[in-house]
């Protein structure tokens, strides 16, 4: 199979924790520019798949190719440099730093020890940070300590940290969970804007949200691929119906 067309090619991926197979012989492919949503009941292995792709968990077996680069043997920060960004389920930001500093740390320059020592906060950095802060609705809060932000604002900040990294593949783990209706709307708008020129992999439960953004949907069940295709197709797949209703 010619793989050049895929931004992400996952093949035969497995991982087991003490004999428990959290992900079992999973294969799927994501096209350049595609927005793919992963759904599945609790414990289906959705978050584990993201963990495997971004290097947080090491695969027991199988391969993950990002633009034909094998990710399974790379360290987390190398995967980031290759162009994969990840947003965690719970807002994962640096509470003791300000919004500005949070964004600044994600700026893709000065990532070695020496680079960090000699890093200068020049115009380029300030402009980029201000631009992104504008986009994530936090322009007025640049000097606020991050732990004082609301839950929704923290989610936005983390999305902003990803934007500054400018990844080619963006992975989002339940980006609208725990948000108020107003925040949810704003977030959908934000995601619509930022997902335009990149490939995106999203885990989400909110079906309305999935319908809004998904190009294709992958359904996981007990670590295996259950169904894949357009949301319409997947919804009518009897296997999927059984898993969701049989619970």
């Amino acid at each position, binding site marked *: 199979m010619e793989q050049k067309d895929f931004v992400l090619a996952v093949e035969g991926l497995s991982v087991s*924790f*003490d004999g428990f197979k*959290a992900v079992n012989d999973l294969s799927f492919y994501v096209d350049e520019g595609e927005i793919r949503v992963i759904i599945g009941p609790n414990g289906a292995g959705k978050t*584990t798949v993201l963990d495997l792709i971004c290097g947080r*968990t090491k695969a027991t077996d199988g391969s993950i190719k990002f633009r034909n680069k094998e990710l399974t043997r790379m360290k987390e920060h190398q995967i980031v440099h290759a162009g994969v960004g990840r947003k965690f389920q719970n807002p994962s930001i640096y509470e003791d730093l300000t919004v500005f500093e949070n964004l600044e740390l994600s700026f893709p320059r000065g990532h070695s020890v020496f680079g960090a020592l000699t890093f200068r906060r020049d115009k380029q950095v300030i402009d980029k940070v201000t631009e992104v802060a504008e986009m994530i609705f936090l322009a007025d809060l640049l000097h606020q300590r991050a732990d004082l932000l609301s839950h929704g604002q923290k989610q936005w900040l983390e999305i902003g940290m990803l934007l500054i990294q400018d990844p080619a593949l963006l992975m989002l783990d339940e980006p609208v969970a725990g948000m108020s209706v107003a925040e949810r709307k704003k977030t959908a708008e934000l995601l619509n804007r930022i997902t335009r020129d990149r490939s995106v992999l999203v885990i989400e439960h909110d079906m309305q949200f999935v319908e809004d953004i998904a190009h294709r949907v992958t359904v996981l069940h007990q670590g295996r691929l259950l169904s894949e295709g357009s949301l319409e197709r997947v919804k009518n797949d009897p296997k999927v119906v059984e898993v969701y209703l049989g619970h």
Partner: protein
Amino acid sequence: MFADYSSSELLAIFAMQGFAGLSLFSIFVLMALGLAIIFGQMGVINMAHGEFMILGAYMTYLTSNLFEALMPGLYGAYFIVAMVVAFVSAGALGALVEWAMIRRLYHRPLDTLLATWGLSLILQQCYRSIFGAREVGVSLPDWLMGSVAVTDMIEIPINGLFVMVLTLLIAAGVYYLMYRSNWGGQVRAVVQNRPMAGAVGINTGKVDRMTFALGCGIAGVAGSAFTMIGSTGPTSGQLYIVDTFLVVVFGGAASLLGTIASAFTISQAQSTMEFFLSGSMAKVLTLLVVVGILMLRPQGLFSLKIRR
């Protein structure tokens, strides 16, 4: 280094040193059991653990003096009473310390380490003020004196044998408590998921306090055993604290069997080497090997692969 000895001599040396090592093994196991419960189950580093052990030792000393003065006829039985006294007093102090200090620091493990170090300094000075700076010892009851001659070259002291049997009994008791009893189930439930354990009706604060008290109580019993093989001074406990921490970490913090196996390995290595090298070099070598192995295998010898 073996060339100077005949093979039968070597055998005898290994046996005798091995047995001498078993005394060290007993102390390691008893101290490490308490530490492993507190560290493995609660993530708390108790730097004052040695002082809890010494509290038990002083309690044993007091009990033996009491028996000697009031009921010399029953002196042979004092040790049983002393163990109970040691367990209860160290456990009670542990519960008090948990209430006053530790429970405020559960999210800051490195800070518990400093605070318990402060506690150890205070306890040491208390012992010095109350019992004096000189080491004290207990006289063994008659039935623990003497030794069993296995061959004409190998003799095993009865008190060492007794302490070892005691150690194994306590270890078995702890195992039962932690893995077979209802209470142990609660402790492990709290370790795995504190909010959930609280939600199903376990009083997590009380479980923490009892766990800490139990760990300290076992250290107290260790102190009782300690009086059988050495004399007690205000700083005797501190001498063992680094070794015991290494025992716990080396064994893989959450594994009881691992703790015992690692205590055995370390004590035997040290004791056997002691015969051939000077005592200090034996210790340096043992610790170096342990630290070296831990650097290569930081999770310890016995540990499970878990999803983080």
